């Protein structure tokens, strides 16, 4: 089994520890959160995977964005995401963050969440079953092994574009930029 391979632990302890101890922040974003309590209680036990919910973003590793994202919720999601310590992983849960899902022509929901915060993986379904969450967790382990789950690095690299998208949608933001955005005159946006 993968866990008992001591050589892997000795070679890359950071990757192994990040994989097997994913602390998910318990932020009920949308309607998909109804599928999470069965996952973390006795029937489908997520604690044997190392996934446990925590109450504050400062202690969290994994952000599960469940269900549709309205414009008001997007503010809270961006603030929560920026408070989490690195390395952090985000998973879009349900079909609404992928392309709008059932609310594809709604006046108040976000159609593509990828434009505002970086996403490492998606889980399709409306709602996905708890077994789909476990498949996603193991898939995230493989991505962490291959070092492809680097959403937080993309956020740092393209922070100007993300911030510009957030401001285009939400207007003026109350929180200062997380990484330094160089001062350009506003007419230079492409």
């Amino acid at each position: 089994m993968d866990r008992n391979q001591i050589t892997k632990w000795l070679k890359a302890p950071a990757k192994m520890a990040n994989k097997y101890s994913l602390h998910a922040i318990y932020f009920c974003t949308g309607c998909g959160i109804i599928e999470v309590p069965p996952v973390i209680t006795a029937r489908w036990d997520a604690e044997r995977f190392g996934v446990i919910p925590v109450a504050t973003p400062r202690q969290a590793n994994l952000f599960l964005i469940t269900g549709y994202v309205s414009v008001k919720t997007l503010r809270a999601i961006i603030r929560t995401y920026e408070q989490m310590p690195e390395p952090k992983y985000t998973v879009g849960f349900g079909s609404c963050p992928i392309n709008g899902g059932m609310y594809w022509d709604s006046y108040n929901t976000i159609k593509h969440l990828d434009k505002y915060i970086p996403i490492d993986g998606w889980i399709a379904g409306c709602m996905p079953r708890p077994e789909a969450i476990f498949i996603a967790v193991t898939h995230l382990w493989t991505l962490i092994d291959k070092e492809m789950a680097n959403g937080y690095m993309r956020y740092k690299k393209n922070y100007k574009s993300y911030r510009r998208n957030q401001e285009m949608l939400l207007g003026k933001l109350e929180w200062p930029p997380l990484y330094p955005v160089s001062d350009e005159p506003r007419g230079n946006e492409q």
Partner: protein
Amino acid sequence: MVAKITHIILSPILALVVGVFFSGLARKITARIHWRYGPPLIQPVIDMIKLFYQKGVSHGAMFDLGLIFSLAGSIVVVLFLPFGRIAPLSNSGGLLVILYIMLFAPLGMALSGGEGANPNISIGISRKLILSLGYEVPLLLILLTVMTRYRTISIMEVVNAQQSTNWSIISFPLFLSGLSYFLILPAILGLRPFDVSSAPQEISSGPMAEYGGKYLALATIEHAFVLFISIALFVNLFLGGATNPIIFFVKMLVVFVLGLFIHAVFPRFRIEQAIKYLWKWPTLLAFLGLIMTLVIRS
């Protein structure tokens, strides 16, 4: 001399190992009581390794120093507690020093929490300090009783006295104090029904709300030490201590598992309900034990 230095280095390391093992055991046994499988036993170690690789956010100098202060206090208390034969400083000071330095843990957290700019931290710290006020009253009475009965303040002499006669918990006036200590043990450990100070659902983890990365790892280590200290004190004073670290560990395991059975099924008290409970029956029993010990002595 060399033995003493080895013991001084070995004692906190052993306490850490035992404390971390108990945290892992807590999650596993709680999960099995809930009819699920639970994480592997080394899950706290995996968590700590991950936390040391995370880049937490610091809020200032006092944020770091308060945490180190509370951790230092816990390590010093460990040096005064005998663990089988490993007892580096237990012949000097003893119970009085432990009583004093045991309070460094919540005070250190209060200092560091004051720097974190989160109101949840203040609520959690106030609840933690009120709870420690609640269990300090019966704890003081119990320790006074033990000191009066054995006429000493050194824990090693208490342990040796119990080795020759029988355990304190079944000897006549002290069984009341032992019962009272067992009733307040969940409050000292921070287990349910007394984990109101770090309630994740109400105040987003209370004092640990702003800890991330290595600060959370240090806080977890500090919780492991507090776990060790409280149970080791109980075993030394009332269950006879041990001449062997292995028997000592077995006794600690029995006490901890009994406390876990209560932790796994109970909801939590509110803070005023907790204080009402702590100042009612445990205080009464401890007081009765003290009176009877004084009567017997005279």
